[in-house]
C-alpha cells in the first residue's frame, strides 16, 4: 500500500560509516583498567610486603654491627635502639617473657592450671615492672634456660643455640634466620626461623591428616551416594562451616577443645600443635569438601553409566571410576586446604600455645609463621630488623600460597585436559 519507508537508499557508505562512540570507548577502557587492578594488587602485595623486608638483605650486616656497637654505646643509633627496646616497649618485653616462661613452666610444674596463668601473665607483666628484671636475669644466665629438661631434644637445642649467640654476632642475619632460636626482642635479638617452620609444618600436617580424609570422604558421599534431596541438605550445611569466622573457631578451640583433648590425652601443655591442627582442620574442611565435591560431580555421566552398565555397584563405580577420574581436582582441593592452614593466623594465635620450640611431639606448643606476624607486628617499630624479618616471613607466606595456587591451577587444568580430551 502506501510506502512510508523512503524508497531511497538507506544503505550508503556515509550512513554506515564507522562511528566513534565516546561512552562505548570509555566504558571499555574503564572496565579493562579496573580489571587490570586485580593484577596490579597481586604485584603490589608482593612488592610492598617484600619491600619492607628488604633491609634484611641490604642491611643485614649493618644491623649486626649496630648490635655490636650497642654494647660499647659509642653511637647515636644504638642508643635509640636500646631505648626502644628497653623503655618504650615494655609490652614487647612482656611478650618475650611469655615465650621464655612457657617452656619452663611446663618443665617445672606439671599442673595444667599454670598454662592459663602464664597466658594472662602478659597482662600482669605490663602492670608489674619487677618481673621485667626477671627477663634480664634470664638473658644473662643462659644456663637456667638450658636447664629445662623435659625433652632432651629441646634442652640440647636451646643450649646449643645460646652457645651460638656469640658467633652469630659476627655473621650476617642470614645465618641467624636458619637457626632454631626465635628471640626477636632482647639485647641480642635472634631471628631463627627453623622452629617456626617446624611449628607451621606440624600444625599443617596434623590438620591435613584430619581434614583431608574426612572432607574427601564426605565429598564422595555427597557426590556419589547421597540422594538428590540429602545432597541439597548436606551441602549447604557443610558449606556453612566456611562461614564460621576463624576467630570463632580459634576461640572455641581455646576455650572448649583444648580442655576436652587434655582431659582425654592427659598431655601437659593445654594449647599445642594438636589442638591447633584440629581447629584448623575445621577451617579447611569446607574448602577441601567443596572443591572435591565439585570435581567428583563434574565427572561426565557417561563414565559412571558405562561402569554401572558393566555390572559394577554404585560404590565400585565411585571408587574405581569416579574417584580416580577426579584425582586432579581433589589434589587441587588438598593444595588449597594446605594453603589455608599454612597462612591461618587467628586459630594459630589462639590455639597453638605460641611457643617456638624445636620438637616433633604433636602435643607440645608451637608457633607458626602467620601467628608470629600476627602477634608481634603491632609491637615492632617501623624500620627495625624485627619489623623487616616479620615482613620477610610475610613474603615467604605469600610466595608459598601463590605457588600453591599456581600449582593447583595449572597442574589440575593440564591433567583434566589430558584425561578428557586425550591430548
Amino acid at each position, binding site marked *: *500500500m502506501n*510506502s*512510508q*519507508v523512503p*524508497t531511497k*537508499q*538507506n*544503505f*550508503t*557508505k556515509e*550512513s*554506515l*560509516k*564507522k*562511528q566513534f*562512540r565516546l561512552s562505548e570507548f570509555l566504558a571499555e577502557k574503564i572496565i579493562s583498567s579496573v580489571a587490570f587492578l586485580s593484577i596490579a594488587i597481586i604485584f603490589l602485595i608482593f612488592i610492598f610486603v617484600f619491600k619492607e623486608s628488604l633491609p634484611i638483605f641490604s642491611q643485614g650486616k649493618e644491623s649486626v654491627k649496630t648490635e655490636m656497637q650497642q654494647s660499647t654505646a659509642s653511637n647515636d643509633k644504638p642508643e635509640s635502639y636500646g631505648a626502644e627496646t628497653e623503655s618504650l616497649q615494655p609490652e614487647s618485653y612482656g611478650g618475650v617473657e611469655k615465650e621464655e616462661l612457657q617452656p619452663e613452666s611446663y618443665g617445672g610444674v606439671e599442673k595444667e592450671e599454670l598454662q592459663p596463668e602464664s597466658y594472662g601473665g602478659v597482662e600482669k607483666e605490663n602492670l608489674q615492672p619487677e618481673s621485667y628484671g626477671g627477663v634480664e636475669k634470664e638473658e644473662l644466665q643462659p644456663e637456667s634456660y638450658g636447664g629445662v629438661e623435659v625433652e632432651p631434644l629441646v634442652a640440647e637445642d636451646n643450649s646449643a643455640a645460646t652457645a651460638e649467640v656469640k658467633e652469630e654476632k659476627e655473621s650476617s642475619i642470614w645465618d641467624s634466620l636458619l637457626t632454631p632460636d626465635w628471640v626477636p626482642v632482647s639485647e641480642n635479638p635472634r631471628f631463627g626461623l627453623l622452629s617456626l617452620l617446624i611449628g607451621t609444618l606440624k600444625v599443617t600436617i596434623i590438620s591435613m591428616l584430619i581434614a583431608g580424609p574426612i572432607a574427601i570422604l564426605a565429598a564422595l558421599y555427597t557426590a556419589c551416594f547421597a540422594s538428590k534431596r540429602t545432597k541439597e541438605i548436606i551441602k549447604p550445611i557443610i558449606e556453612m562451616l566456611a562461614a564460621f569466622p576463624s576467630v570463632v573457631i580459634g576461640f572455641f578451640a581455646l576455650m572448649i577443645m583444648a580442655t576436652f583433648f587434655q582431659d582425654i590425652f592427659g598431655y601437659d601443655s593445654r594449647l599445642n600443635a594438636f589442638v591447633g591442627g584440629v581447629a584448623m582442620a575445621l577451617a579447611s574442611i569446607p574448602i577441601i569438601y567443596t572443591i572435591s565435591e565439585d570435581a567428583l560431580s563434574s565427572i561426565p555421566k557417561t563414565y559412571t553409566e558405562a561402569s554401572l552398565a558393566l555390572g559394577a555397584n554404585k560404590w565400585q563405580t565411585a571408587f574405581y571410576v569416579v574417584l580416580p577420574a577426579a584425582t586432579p581436582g581433589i589434589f587441587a582441593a588438598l593444595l588449597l586446604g594446605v594453603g589455608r592452614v599454612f597462612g591461618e593466623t587467628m586459630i594459630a594465635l589462639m590455639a597453638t600455645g605460641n611457643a617456638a620450640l624445636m620438637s616433633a611431639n604433636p602435643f607440645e606448643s608451637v608457633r607458626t609463621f602467620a601467628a608470629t606476624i600476627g602477634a608481634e607486628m603491632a609491637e615492632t617499630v617501623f624500620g627495625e630488623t624485627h619489623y623487616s624479618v616479620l615482613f620477610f616471613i610475610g613474603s615467604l607466606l605469600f610466595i608459598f600460597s601463590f605457588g600453591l595456587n599456581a600449582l593447583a591451577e595449572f597442574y589440575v587444568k593440564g591433567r583434566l585436559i589430558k584425561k578428557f580430551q586425550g591430548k
Partner: protein
Amino acid sequence: MKDIKIQVNDLSLYYGEKKALKEITMQVPANKVTALIGPSGCGKSTFLRCINRMNDLIPSVSITGQMLVEGVDIYDKNVDVVNIRKKIGMVFQKSNPFPKSIYENVAYGSRINGINDKNTLDEIVETSLRQAAIWDELKDRLGDSALGLSGGQQQRLCIARTLAVSPDIILMDEPASALDPISTSKIEELVHELKEQYTIIIVTHNMQQAARTSDHTAFFYMGELIEMGKTNEIFTKPEKKQTEDYITGRFG
C-alpha cells in the same frame, strides 16, 4: 538495482577451521519475502545471522566474500556494525522479550537511540504494536511484564520491538517454530502485511510455511546454496534433484 536489496558474492563462513557456509552467491529482492529452507544444520540460520553480522559475536567465526546491501559491503572495515543492526532487524526463533514491561520492550530501541520524549515514545509504541497487529490485545496492559504474555504474543511483541527501530530489512529465524497453529497463522499473516514496507528474509523448516508466505525460496544443503528461485517454481518444478528430494520429503 532497485529491486535487488542484498547481493551476496562468494560468501564463506568458517567456525575455526570448519567451513560452515560455502561460497554462497545470491540476490535478495526488495520488498519481498524470501524464505530460506533446508534440513537442520544446513547453514540457513548461520547465513541469516551473517546478514546483520550477529556472527561477529562468536569469536571463532571468520567470513570471506561480499555481502552487499544496496551496494554497500557491510563487512567493509569502515562500516559500523551497530548502524547495520539498526537498519537490519532480527526476530529470533525463541521469543526473547526483556524482563521489562510491554511498553519498555517496544520503547527499548528508541531509548537507546536517545529518544526519551514521552509523547514520541508513546506514538512509536502504538504504531509498532499496531503494525505487529497486537495493539488491541495489549493496549490496556502496557505496564505489565512482557514475560506474562503467551508465546505467540511474546513473539509478536518481539516483532513490534524490531519494527520500532524502523529497520529496512527484517530477518526472521524460524519465528513460529515454537508456537501453536493459531499463533503461527497470525505471524504468517503479519509477515504478509509487512512485506509492503520491508524486505523480509525468513528461515523456516516448515515447507508449507515457506510456500504460503514467501515470494522467493532458497534451498540450502550442507552449507551450500543449492537452488534459488520464485517460490512456486521451486515447489512445483525444482531444477536440482536434491531440492526435489527435500521438498518431497525424502530426507530432512
